[in-house]
């Protein structure tokens, strides 16, 4: 039972490059979330999805895009990487609104 799986675990990008952070869950959860965590700043919500084909912005969406074509996958896209996007990114999922949120192990991204 894998839970929430994030790839890659680490990545270094150059300014202006693009990349996709992958997130997959095998719990048949409807809701999925992307957060970033900066030192001393807690978790900030980037985007979330309440089901396939439905996404919505969170607190800090600028510079990111998401899509949700299947229940299992919720990739996060960075189009033009900037140093301000250096962070640890976490994907999470819950079965339905108000449920227990399960987190992946995170992706550490550095933009230089």
């Amino acid at each position, binding site marked *: 039972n894998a839970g929430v799986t994030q790839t890659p675990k680490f990545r270094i990008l150059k300014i202006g490059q693009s990349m996709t952070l992958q997130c997959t869950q095998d719990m048949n959860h409807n809701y999925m979330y992307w957060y970033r965590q900066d030192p001393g700043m807690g*978790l900030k919500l980037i985007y979330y999805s309440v089901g396939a084909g439905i996404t919505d912005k969170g607190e800090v969406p600028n510079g990111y895009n998401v899509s949700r074509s299947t229940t299992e996958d919720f990739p996060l896209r960075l189009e033009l990487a900037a140093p301000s996007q250096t962070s640890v990114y976490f994907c999470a999922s819950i079965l339905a609104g108000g449920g227990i949120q399960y987190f992946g192990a995170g992706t550490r991204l550095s933009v230089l």
Partner: protein
Amino acid sequence: QKEVEQDPGPLSVPEGAIVSLNCTYSNSAFQYFMWYRQYSRKGPELLMYTYSSGNKEDGRFTAQVDKSSKYISLFIRDSQPSDSATYLCGKNTGNQFYFGTGTSLTVIP
């Protein structure tokens, strides 16, 4: 005003001490409250989860919610070195989750 505010710490206690971690929240809409534990370089893992005022106990951990003062607390009894981690308080309002900045706890053997 932030949705959730948390005492930043860091906190350092001797093994066996009682630890008190605290947060306040704004917005009184119906919501759930939770505490997550995060070890270094790992994802957060759920410790406690409640939606009502009062205390909820699970082993050495007690979560307390006071809706009248908008205060949420986590108490750890008989603290162990393995409790050394960052603790995040959070709440769920509708489809969104809001978290505090986290309190770093070190339990010294």
